[in-house]
């Protein structure tokens, strides 16, 4: 029943979109990525490049001079904060204090309007070449909640427990497991024990996310990034060991947990999805492959599973006249291995191969449904330069930049001020061993500080990037008709 209602809701929404799209064509660009995949930086770079006429040779509307002007529209939705573009830009361009934007803690939205020279007869006479691009930024953790929409409390509980008992999570889950043993799901509900379980569960999720483990699949996302729900009862639940139990009676701990879980899904996850993700046109999936490679095979498998689960929630498929009536679909997806600037460009093909292997199941499904897909190694803002260092008769393809303070390779610890050239190791030509974890210790990618913001040709100050133009061309290039 809920499925039918949802479908109707989406259909009505997209019918409205189709009507308004005749007058004001709008592209809803879904920037999808788990936390720290680089969503905020991507959006900031995208907006900055469009506003300031960046160097995007492969983004044809801009390169051929058809884009006349781009500007940020006043926030159309009064209930949502606007994407703090200026704030992020200031952080990136603060001279010696420059740093990457803080991780996103709340939802924000942005409408970018691009005026261009339309080439079609119809476009010329209706909207006169004006395209709105709507982008939403949100904490990546929240994305992990989307698969919960189709899970009951019992199913979620069981899946979470199974995962937490396998390596490498088991050693991080010790104190939570100990507390879990002391809980009886059939016992009368007690606020204190529920809160304690939630606290320990949250701590376990947080330790899974730390750099050493770098695991990705950690729902529910609001536990790690509560946003405005801090200390809300919506967040005081945790999985219980329900093996072989019947649904608990009223008033039991299990019933309380289930009620809260259902409330979480109904009041937090579903609105988040339907307000922002159910009506996307195009999607870019940012995947931080390199950090996962740093952490090892468990992180990679986890990342792959997390993304597969998330992408399952989106409506993907080729556009047709019917899709306007029965709900929008995403008809083009770019899978981007972000932060490709941590690697010499000669290895980008290999990075793309690893990304494709990692996401093969999700990509195949999208392709089967008729959507166009592309995989690309990308850096929305390029923080490094490239150099070949010849040492001992061997050419090492290095990248150079200013590593972040505290980053280390072997015994070297960087102070965040001096420049260093780094050889991060060889990516394998065949992605299989990388996914199987045979490269443990052979690769190390350090984070770099943002590049100094230098003026480009003709005094325009734009960020250097890697293949941002190719991704944009694939995503929105055809919208400038």
């Amino acid at each position, binding site marked *: 029943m809920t499925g039918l209602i949802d479908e109707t809701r989406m259909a009505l929404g997209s019918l409205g979109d189709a009507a308004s799209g005749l007058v004001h064509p709008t592209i809803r660009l879904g920037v999808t990525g788990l936390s720290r995949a680089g969503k905020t930086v991507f959006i900031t770079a995208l907006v900055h490049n469009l506003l300031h006429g960046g*160097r995007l*040779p*492969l983004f*044809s509307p801009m*390169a*051929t001079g058809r884009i006349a002007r781009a500007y940020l529209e006043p926030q159309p939705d009064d209930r949502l904060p606007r994407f703090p573009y200026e704030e992020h830009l200031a952080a990136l361009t603060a001279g*010696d204090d420059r740093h990457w934007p803080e991780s996103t803690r709340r939802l924000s939205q942005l409408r970018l309007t691009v005026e261009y020279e339309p080439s079609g007869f119809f476009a010329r006479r209706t909207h006169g070449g004006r395209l709105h691009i709507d982008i939403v930024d949100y904490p990546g953790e929240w994305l992990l909640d989307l698969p919960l929409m189709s899970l009951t409390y019992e199913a979620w509980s069981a899946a979470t427990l199974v995962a937490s008992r396998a390596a490498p999570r088991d050693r991080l889950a010790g104190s939570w497991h100990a507390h879990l043993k002391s809980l009886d799901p059939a016992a009368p509900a007690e606020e204190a024990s529920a809160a304690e379980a939630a606290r320990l569960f949250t701590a376990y999720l947080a330790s899974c996310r730390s750099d050493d483990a770098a695991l990705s699949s950690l729902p529910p996302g609001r536990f790690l990034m509560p946003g405005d729900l801090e200390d809300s009862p919506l967040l005081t639940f945790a999985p219980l060991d329900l093996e072989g139990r019947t649904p608990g009676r009223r008033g039991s701990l299990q019933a309380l947990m289930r009620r809260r879980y259902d409330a979480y899904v109904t009041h937090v996850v579903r609105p988040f999805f339907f307000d922002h993700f159910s009506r996307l046109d195009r999607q870019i999936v940012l995947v931080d492959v390199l950090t996962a490679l740093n952490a090892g095979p468990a992180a990679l498998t986890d990342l792959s599973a997390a993304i597969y689960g998330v992408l399952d929630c989106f409506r993907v498929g080729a556009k047709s006249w019917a899709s306007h009536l029965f709900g929008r679909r995403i008809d083009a997806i770019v899978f981007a291995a972000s932060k490709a600037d941590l690697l010499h*460009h000669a290895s*980008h*093909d290999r990075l793309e191969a690893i990304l494709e292997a990692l996401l093969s199941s999700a990509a195949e499904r999208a392709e089967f449904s008729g959507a166009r897909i592309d995989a690309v190694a990308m850096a929305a803002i390029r923080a490094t*330069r*490239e*150099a*070949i*260092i*010849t*040492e*001992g008769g*061997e050419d*090492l393809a*290095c990248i*150079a930049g*200013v590593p972040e303070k505290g980053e280390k*390779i*072997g015994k*070297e610890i960087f*102070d965040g*001020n*001096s*420049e*260093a*050239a*780094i*050889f*991060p*190791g*060889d990516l*394998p*030509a065949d992605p299989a061993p990388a996914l199987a974890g045979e490269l443990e*210790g*052979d*690769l*190390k990618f350090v984070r770099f500080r943002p590049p*100094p913001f*230098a003026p480009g*040709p003709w005094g325009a100050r734009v960020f250097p990037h*890697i*293949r941002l133009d*190719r991704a944009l061309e694939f995503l929105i290039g055809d919208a400038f008709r």
Partner: protein
Amino acid sequence: MSTRTRHPQVFRLDTEGDKPAPPREKPKSRKLRRVSAPKIEWHDETAEAENLPARVPVRPAPLTRSRRHWGTVLIAAMAGFLSLAFGQWAYGLVESFFARSAWLGWTATGLLAAAGIAALAIVLREMLALARLRTLERLQADATHATATDDADAAARVMAGLKSLYAGRADTAWDLSRLVEHEADIIDPAGRIRLAERDLVAPLDEEGQRIIARTARRVTLLTAVSPNAALDVVFVAMQNLKMLRQLAALYGGRPGTIGTVRLARMVIAHLAVAGGLALSDTVVQHLIGKGLAGRLSARFGEGTVNGILTARIGRAALDLTRPLPFASTSPPALTDLMREVMRLGGGEAQAE
């Protein structure tokens, strides 16, 4: 890939020229771990392009076996014999001139030498022209390969070839400089080719299309008014050859006489191979159009047919002489060309 794993390494860099010196709290006590200072070579696309390995481009095997057979031997032997005979005849002639008077002898020698130099120059020019045509062909093959397989080497060869082809031409200077600007960017090989096509070759396509339309229009008009069928044939052939030369010159393969003949042969072959396909898409309309024109006037109908044929030859020649295959931009459709051609009145007056 080497079998030995190469481990991650760090090389400390001293302050680079383009970066303001960061304040150093602690002195650089940490030394490089190597005995000798490593040589650092900054990534510079132009340097890379010059140091390209000389690799033979991957090209499809020729369709015909080389026929170095008796025919060749015969021709070579005959040519050698004839040149010997010519040499003896000239030598005898000059000798007899000398016998008559010294100044007559010297004049004859001078004239002969001038003729020899001129012949040499012509041969050289023809060879150069053929080499230019071959460059275009090779570029096209490399570009196809680079686009299909994302081969970086092939793309670099194409870029170098395009640069040498269009350097020093006033009409491409601006487009070429725009292209060179992006040389140091990280762009995939296929993207590089697309970029070159859009920035450098597409502006030339417009001119090429104009050349074809102009020739087709002229052929149509003059066939319609010419008094004699034999004159028609000569005229149409001349115009077509001129069009081939113009197109080849436009794309940088300025052909000589032999080059033009070779190009004409290639065009005919191309038409025979691809013509069947291209014919089917628009031929119906054109035949109907011809029929209508033929109803109005038999001569005019013939003119239209000749015009269509010329436009088709032009399209084939454009495909052949273009240094890059059509990938990101679409080739000019015959329909568009014919629309150009059919704007008879005003267009022709302006063109002439």
